[in-house]
């Protein structure tokens, strides 16, 4: 446990001494800010129009929040590979991987520690978006529970993409390749259910289950279902497990 924490701390520090953390967070804040603005504008338009029609319908401030957080999920698909690409690729390139693997710490604490460090950065970026959402809490009265559930979903989904990124990073010593491949793999997992919309064969059910989007949809609606949590958590475990195996097998073959 202590070893995981040491590695996690180290990862976090190296993110924050290099420009990558700041660039990532700034980019995320900028794009999320734009989504925030356009969702709210749409929402306001909708309210004005319904007021002009006369019927003052009850409005739900959670509507725009759901929209913008859903967008944050898509955004993380692009940004998370930026975080994960250096995890192992850089260590391989610099030879520091030899230091880690000749230190008296189990391999899994290295893998988990690295993933956790990257998670912390991702959560930090999400926290910036929470500032925007907090504004809505200050001026309106949204229900906070669905918001929390949506954030949990975002964290879990980000964790999945990060775990894929960790695995890909362990496969290469080139950061650019690691980032690109991680993006590609998560994009495929993201889009997996597109072809299955009006199809009900077993294959499409499987594809639908493996895709990252349908699981996120429930979280976005504020539905916390065990099935989706289990999917994400087991996904993360599986990817990290493969990472561990990959690192071992590289050493057996090298």
């Amino acid at each position: 446990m202590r070893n995981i924490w040491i590695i996690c701390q180290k990862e976090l520090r190296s993110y924050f001494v290099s420009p990558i953390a700041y660039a990532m967070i700034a980019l995320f804040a900028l794009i999320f800010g734009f989504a925030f603005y356009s969702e709210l504008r749409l929402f306001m338009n909708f309210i004005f129009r319904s007021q002009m029609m006369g019927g003052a319908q009850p409005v739900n401030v959670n509507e725009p929040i759901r929209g913008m957080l859903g967008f944050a999920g898509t955004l993380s698909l692009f940004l998370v590979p930026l975080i994960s690409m250096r995890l192992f690729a850089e260590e391989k390139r610099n030879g520091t991987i030899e230091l880690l693997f000749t230190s008296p710490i189990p391999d899994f604490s290295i893998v988990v520690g690295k993933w956790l460090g990257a998670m912390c950065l991702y959560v930090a970026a999400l926290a910036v978006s929470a500032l925007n959402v907090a504004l809505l809490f200050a001026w309106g009265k949204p229900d906070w529970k669905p918001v929390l559930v949506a954030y949990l979903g975002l964290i879990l989904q980000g964790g999945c993409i990060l775990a894929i990124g960790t695995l890909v990073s362990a496969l290469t010593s080139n950061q650019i390749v690691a980032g690109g491949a991680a993006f590609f793999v998560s994009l495929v997992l993201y889009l997996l259910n597109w072809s299955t919309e009006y199809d009900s064969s077993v294959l499409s059910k499987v594809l639908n289950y493996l895709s990252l989007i349908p699981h996120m949809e429930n979280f976005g609606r504020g539905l916390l279902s065990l099935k989706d949590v289990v999917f994400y958590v087991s996904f993360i475990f599986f990817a990290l497990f493969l990472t561990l195996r990959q690192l071992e097998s590289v050493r057996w073959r090298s």
Partner: protein
Amino acid sequence: MITVHELTKRYARNTAVDHISFEVKKGQIVGFLGPNGAGKTTTMRMLTCFLPPTSGGATVAGFDVLEKPLEVKRRIGYLPELPPLYLEMRTAEYLYFVGRIKGLRGPELAKRVAYVLDRCAIADVETKVLGKLSKGYRQRVGLAQAIIHNPDVLILDEPTAGLDPKQINETRELIRGLAGDHTIILSTHILPEVEQTCEQVIIINKGKLVATDSVNNLQNRARGAGSVMVEIAARNAEVASVRERLARVPGVSRVEVKESREDLTAFEVEGKSDRAMRAALARAVVESGWDLNELRTAAVSLEEIFLELTSKDQQQARAGETPEGEVEAVAEPGKR
């Protein structure tokens, strides 16, 4: 301290390390010698549990590298060929990190960091970013990293590679100074380094163990067939006659003209090369009325022994070729 038994590492296409066995006793400095690609790095990586062996085994401080890797790692300090530095970290920060993953904590950690900063003479760059340090400093930080947890065994892969002569000397001093407390294996392809720093030599070539002995023994072994260099001012001496005269000296087996210029001629005299022969040589030269400029025994360096040992199998085919040709390297597969 270290026992290596039939250690073998096979890659897809070639065998990097081929049934190597040796032993290193506590407190020794051992030079691990071989041309590039001989399998030095691979062997060291197996000893540090970075690579698992294909067959055979090794124990460090009584622990098997395959069965108890964590125990082995706890007792080993390893400096890879390229110092494993996180270039964005500062020196002290880096050492604290390494100390922590090696299992140190609290006041003990602070004490060890202060000690290695002082010991490796890097206290003046304590707050500098590692990426900005010169090669010599990086190497010393690498060494500091290896000794921070006070390991029983130090494994140093080419610790002086790429340094300038002054830094090389400093690094060797440092390594010699560490010898008392640690058992040290250092790999190198620079022979004088072994002669200067090590007590024991392990020579490998193309993955096979060629020789393992003490430096002195190896030198003695080769001294038997030594040679004497005789340099004579050539004013009044004719090369052919001098050569003939020298060949008649008792104990001489062969005389060869090494260098012949206007003002001097140098001969290489092979024979028993003992004191009596040298004295007889000097007398012969002086009595014939020639001017003796220089007479010295050509010291047999490890270099010659090394070349002889590592090129045995190719000797017949390419006798008399340049040394570089004989120590040609196979691509080192351990590198990524």
